[in-house]
């Protein structure tokens, strides 16, 4: 049961979350400026993008030739795909946080919460893996 002061794992989670979100947001702003001002070429020119975003996912993927999964990581030379880096990083922050608190739970002998945190991280990693995708 949590006392008046936040627990060690809660503070550790908060610190890593704080750091992660700051790095992610800075990355988001920098890469969006690069994309918006066309400092790098775009895979889909911004003036054509709107016509693609009206399509459903299936047609969008077919017409743009974009592949699902981690394909974008091979396309970072394009400004639009570069923005995926901080977006993906922000999604990973939660996984880092859950992995961070596992040793703290183990140190306290709290095996149930160590297991639940590991399970949560594995579920998120499965979602991130690219094995689960829909629409094409």
């Amino acid at each position, binding site marked *: *049961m*949590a*006392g*008046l*002061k*936040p*627990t060690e*794992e*809660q503070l550790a*989670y*908060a*610190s890593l*979350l*704080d750091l992660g*979100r700051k790095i*992610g*947001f800075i990355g*988001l702003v920098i890469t*969006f400026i690069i*994309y*918006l001002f066309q400092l790098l070429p775009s895979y889909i020119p*911004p*003036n*054509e*993008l*709107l*016509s693609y*975003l*009206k*399509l*459903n*996912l299936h047609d969008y993927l077919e017409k743009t030739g*974009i592949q*699902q999964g981690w394909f974008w990581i091979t396309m970072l030379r394009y400004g639009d795909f570069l*923005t*995926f880096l901080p*977006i*993906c990083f*922000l*999604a990973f*922050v*939660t*996984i880092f946080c859950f992995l961070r*608190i596992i040793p703290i739970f183990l140190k306290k002998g709290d095996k*149930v*919460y160590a297991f*639940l*945190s590991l399970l*949560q991280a594995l*579920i*998120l990693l*499965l*979602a991130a*893996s*690219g094995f*689960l*995708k*829909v*629409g*094409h």
Partner: protein
Amino acid sequence: MGRRQILAMFAMGLILCIISLAFGGEAQIPTNSSLPWWAWPLILFGFTFVLGIVAVLGGVGGGVLYVPIVGGFFPFNLDFVRGAGLFTALTGALSAGPGLLRRGLADLRLAIPLSVVTSVGAIVGAMIGLALPKNLVNTLLGVTILGIMIIMLRAKKSEFPEVKGPDPIAKALGIGGIYVEPSLGKEIHWTVHRTPIALVLFAIIGILGGMFGLGAGWANVPVLNLLMGVPLKVAVSTSVFLLSITTSAAFIYLNSGAISPMIVIPSIIGIMLGAVVGVKILEVARPKVIRIMVLGLLFLSGLRALLKGLGIWN
């Protein structure tokens, strides 16, 4: 809300889904826009900035308003709007999370078991949502949003619910805690009950959140507060933290290709800045007026999604 009313709402939703499948067709989005390309991220930023303010003042997460309004009134396919909705909910949770955890208001012991089932539900929901025909998704979204509006209209809140004792699961997991309530100047001891039912409900909340790209504060808070007996402040804070678990569904949208930076990034920045301003004007705002406005927006956007799904208002 009585069991009969819930059954009636469910039956009505089912009938509407069948109608949408039979007559709806794929929702059409106007193909011509006279605006230059850069106008859309700018409009989206301005809109989400206002939305961020309204969301804070109205006590709702931005996601529940974001998806039906942007999906209904902007020239983007719902696939991309739902992906963006999940990322706006995620970043909102990441922004508020550290402060709530450090102050001991969001409770990790309470959140972790719930987050496991919510994340599995959200993955399932995202996969269903991306696989279903768009008119059916629009219809279901409309029904869900109108249902949320009714829940918000009728649900009561309890500052300090009475819990006679923890249930066996809560006891085994050691869920509970103490926090200082400044308005009373005393320590509040809390624990939870009905954990098994809550776990089932959180799985369902995860499915709905993943399917429609909605943040789930509207459902998290009543379940935590009214069902499990978590004090309101801890329930609201833990609910915000739980939104970071929408990450699981956000990954499905990302890996499926349903993420566009031109929609996601202006939305994230707009909602975040709007929330900062919203917090500042919270003290002088009239909560009743804001609440009516939020309910009105939910009604309008829910109706729009429903009619779009049924092929009546494209």
